């Protein structure tokens, strides 16, 4: 019987190897196959001892060749390893790494979302004869070993919501969170809570979560990975991948494929290689802290040694995070440092208590923020001379100090004083009214009120010319004329069939009507310069961070040429334009994502500019408006450099909002994927211009991943409004007035004009 089992396992291993290397011819694999076949054929004719010896020899051969094949793994092979049904899944990890666990938030099939698994686990450490039980919250995507109901690890929005809920529970209980990322991507469905918005909410929540978070990446598919991946330490399994998009998706975009045509296998492998998604690449770029070495050709549930390594890595990472912010840490920190490179060093030689004090928690948040702030610095191009950079640093330090003194120091106390005076004043008001009541009544009866002033006003307004808007009477200098308005042609409204719109003359449409159909109100696409001219006060736009340019960090072929073309065509250096401006004399800071530069895709440069704008707004206590002219998501050719902007910018925005700022987002034309799922979707005040399209994934991607046919207006702004993703739809001619009103009435308790 034992022989049978061993032969069976050898067969399984052979099948596994064949799956991983797909259809590639390989002498080693053929050798293994032929040897196994010979053995099974001759098995019956041999003596039992002989059989035992031959089998042992065969197993050694297998082990040796697996190690050899390990060196020939390409990135696409690693993708196949990670997606294989025999790969370790979260349940295996829970069984073997943690000492005791209870699954919460559902069990197996009986679950809101079977692809997200949450468990309350225990780690038991024995240090110096004493036993310590340390609880952790384990959150991760679960693929199972090929179970259908797990959806292959594609988490639906309510699954992410479940994860967010339990992260908050962990924060209340003051226990660390270990997250395991096993997802090819998020399920792109827009129903409430909405894929993009929920990921944004998760990121927002995790930015300021006051417990240590350790993330372990096995299969990190962009947005889905970020939903639980924002952490203090990121570990990655050596055969995992972490990328902005799956290789198939990248191949579809590269090959300009449409309508469900498949990309060739070579194109997919080349894309996998170019995207630099393996653990070593990510480690080199600084997005992963440590790589956990797996056994040859990927970890499977029978590799018990691997689980031991994983356990000690995870414990060590948590210890490190906690020790970095604790007060009493000297010797233990030294011990961790020295043992890091030694083999067979167990993390269980020291004990670190994982609950933290309040001061430690604040330090933890600060360290998390600084860690992400420093990432991807190498990925954009900044050609400004050293003197300018130095100048910028000095200026920012100056503002920080000024802001600290004026707002945090003086204003806090001044506010307290004014609040107290206000309270006293309102109490006195009631008393005064009661006392002076009869006196007023008497005065009214004896002499009527003086209405002379009121009538004078009325007379003036009725007989003199009125000036209905400040801009209308003034000098209309610098008015923007759209290039579309210079063509002499007629334009048909796309709603002509349903609403009976007549054709419009282009100069009228794009000039006087501001690109709005006069029958149905459909908004035609207008350039971002129109908005810059018509929303902000004339001459008030002052651009900053102009020197940050989009680069090509992965040396992706073709991207340099495309960027040159885009830079020449638009005159911009990257897709984000950040500037200070005024709206009806209220100073604001605005970050615009321009849809004409590479579709408005966000890369390292755009993320850096956005973060700088958020920090500037925080220091100066200005309201922060993100105007999204159009965004197609994260720039795929920048790979993980782009994806990392999602948590980075969300953290910057969170810090800004917590400092008492007002963050408003206005969507225009098309806004999809990455940015909406992070720093745009987390804003409490999101608005859209009419006829905008907002969503997580486009119709093609949805059709491919879920197989659902979606109605043609699925991503329309009105649909987003009914799902609660945005809070209002504005006509573009009213944006100036509406924004001004938003600035006066919404949020931002600590703005300079409050």
């Amino acid at each position, binding site marked *: 019987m034992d022989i049978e089992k061993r032969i069976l396992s050898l067969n399984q291993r052979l099948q596994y190897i064949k799956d991983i290397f797909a259809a590639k011819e390989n002498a080693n694999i053929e050798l293994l196959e032929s040897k196994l076949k010979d053995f099974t054929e001759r098995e019956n004719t041999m003596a039992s001892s002989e059989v035992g010896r031959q089998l042992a020899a065969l197993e050694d051969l297998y082990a040796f060749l697996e190690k050899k094949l390990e060196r020939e793994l390409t990135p696409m092979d690693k993708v196949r390893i990670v997606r294989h049904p025999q790969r370790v899944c979260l349940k295996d990890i829970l069984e073997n790494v943690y000492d005791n666990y209870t699954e919460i938030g559902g069990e197996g099939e009986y679950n809101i979302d079977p692809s997200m698994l949450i468990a309350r686990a225990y780690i038991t450490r024995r240090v110096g004869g004493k036993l310590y039980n340390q609880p952790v919250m384990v959150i991760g995507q679960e693929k199972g070993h090929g179970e259908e109901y797990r959806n292959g690890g594609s988490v639906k929005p309510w699954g992410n919501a479940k994860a967010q809920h339990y992260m908050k529970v962990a924060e209340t209980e003051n226990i660390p969170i270990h997250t395991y990322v096993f997802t090819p991507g998020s399920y792109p469905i827009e129903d409430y809570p909405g894929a993009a918005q929920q990921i944004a909410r998760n990121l927002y929540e995790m930015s300021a979560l006051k417990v240590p978070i350790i993330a372990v990446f096995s299969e990190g598919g962009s947005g889905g990975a970020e939903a639980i991946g924002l952490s203090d330490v990121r570990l990655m399994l050596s055969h995992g991948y972490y990328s902005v998009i799956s290789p198939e998706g990248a191949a579809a975009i590269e090959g300009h494929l449409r309508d469900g045509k498949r990309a060739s296998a070579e194109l997919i492998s080349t894309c996998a290689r170019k995207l630099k998604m393996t653990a070593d690449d990510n480690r080199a770029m600084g997005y992963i802290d440590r790589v956990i070495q797996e056994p040859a050709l990927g970890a499977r549930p029978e590799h018990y040694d691997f689980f031991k390594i994983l356990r000690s890595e995870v414990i060590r990472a948590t210890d490190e995070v906690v020790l970095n912010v604790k007060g009493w840490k000297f010797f233990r920190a030294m011990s961790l440092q020295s043992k890091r490179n030694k083999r067979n060093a167990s993390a269980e030689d020291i004990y670190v208590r994982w609950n933290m004090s309040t001061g430690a928690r604040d330090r933890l948040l600060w360290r998390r923020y600084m860690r992400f702030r420093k990432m991807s610095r190498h990925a954009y191009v900044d050609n400004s001379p050293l003197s300018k950079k130095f100048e910028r640093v000095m200026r920012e330090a100056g503002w920080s100090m000024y802001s600290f003194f004026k707002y945090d120091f003086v204003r806090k106390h001044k506010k307290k004083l004014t609040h107290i005076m206000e309270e006293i004043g309102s109490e006195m008001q009631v008393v005064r009214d009661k006392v002076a009541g009869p006196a007023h009544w008497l005065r009214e009866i004896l002499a009527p009120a003086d209405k002379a002033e009121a009538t004078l006003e009325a007379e003036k307004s009725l007989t003199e010319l009125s000036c209905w808007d400040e801009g209308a009477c003034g000098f209309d200098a610098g008015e923007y004329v759209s290039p579309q308005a210079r*063509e*002499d*042609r*007629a*334009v*048909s409204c796309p709603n002509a069939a349903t609403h009976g719109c007549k*054709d419009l*003359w282009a100069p009228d449409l794009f000039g006087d009507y501001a690109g709005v159909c006069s029958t149905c109100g459909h908004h035609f696409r207008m350039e971002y310069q129109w908005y810059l001219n018509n929303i902000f006060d004339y001459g008030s736009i002052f651009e900053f961070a102009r020197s940050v340019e989009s680069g090509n960090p992965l040396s992706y072929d073709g991207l340099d040429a495309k960027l040159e073309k885009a830079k020449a065509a638009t005159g911009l250096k990257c897709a984000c334009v950040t500037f200070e401006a005024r709206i009806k004399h209220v100073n604001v800071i605005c970050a615009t994502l321009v849809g004409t530069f590479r579709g408005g895709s966000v890369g390292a440069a755009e993320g850096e500019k956005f973060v700088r704008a958020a920090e500037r707004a925080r220091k100066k206590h200005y309201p922060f408006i993100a105007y999204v002219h159009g965004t197609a998501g994260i720039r795929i050719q920048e790979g993980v450099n782009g994806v990392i902007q999602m948590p980075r910018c969300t953290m910057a925005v969170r810090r800004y909002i917590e400092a008492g700022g007002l963050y408003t987002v206005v969507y225009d034309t098309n806004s999809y994927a990455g940015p909406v799922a992070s720093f745009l979707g987390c804003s409490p005040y999101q608005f859209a211009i009419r006829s905008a399209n907002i969503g997580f994934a486009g119709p093609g991607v949805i059709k491919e991943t879920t197989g659902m*046919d979606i*109605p*043609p207006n699925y991503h329309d702004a009105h649909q987003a409004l009914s799902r609660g993703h945005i809070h209002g739809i504005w006509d573009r001619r009213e944006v100036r007035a509406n924004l001004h009103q938003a600035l006066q009435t919404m949020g931002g308790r600590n703005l300079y004009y409050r």
Partner: protein
Amino acid sequence: MIDVKALLEEMKSAPFKVVEVVAPHTGLVEHVITEPGLKVVGSRGTWDEKPGTVLCFLERERNKKPIHAPLKGEVEQVFTEHGGKFVEAGTVLYTIRHYLTKDEVIQEILKKTLYLFCAREQAQYYFVPEADTKVKANGPQSVRVREGMELFIVSRMKRETTLPYSGPEGMIYAVYFKENQSVEAGQPLIGVCPPDQLHVISDVVGRVRSEWEERE
């Protein structure tokens, strides 16, 4: 009786209807389909989101608009004399021969054989509550109508009055209006079938469903 069967024979002899495609407004015509005999399709997709085959382009004021085929059929006549020239609104550009489907044939027959009770004025029409429950529960064929019975509620400008049915006695075979839909004057509301004709009509309908070949 003979009426119905004769009607069916008549329709079998000419199982198509001819649809004219006219220019919706003035413009310069550029034919895309120039040969008669080509097959065209109308708008497809669950929400009719994929437009039909492009027949020609009509350009006015440098705005080129495609003219799509309205339904499935075969191009019968192409008026190529307008090609490249300026045409007025309403000029016929194509005629399409649309082969009738089973449902369309049945609709035609019913329209001609049933007694149609038409709307007098433009309004929204509803069934009287008793009739309405019967129609919703068991289908329209369960309601028997008599001369002078209160059958409809006419709703216009927020005022409602009842409308009595006048015409031969029988049962409602088909309903041609929907709730909350404004019906114009002269449009049929219901089709009534007298009891003696019922057998014949259902017979014919069954025959059409089984025998009629739909030409692709």
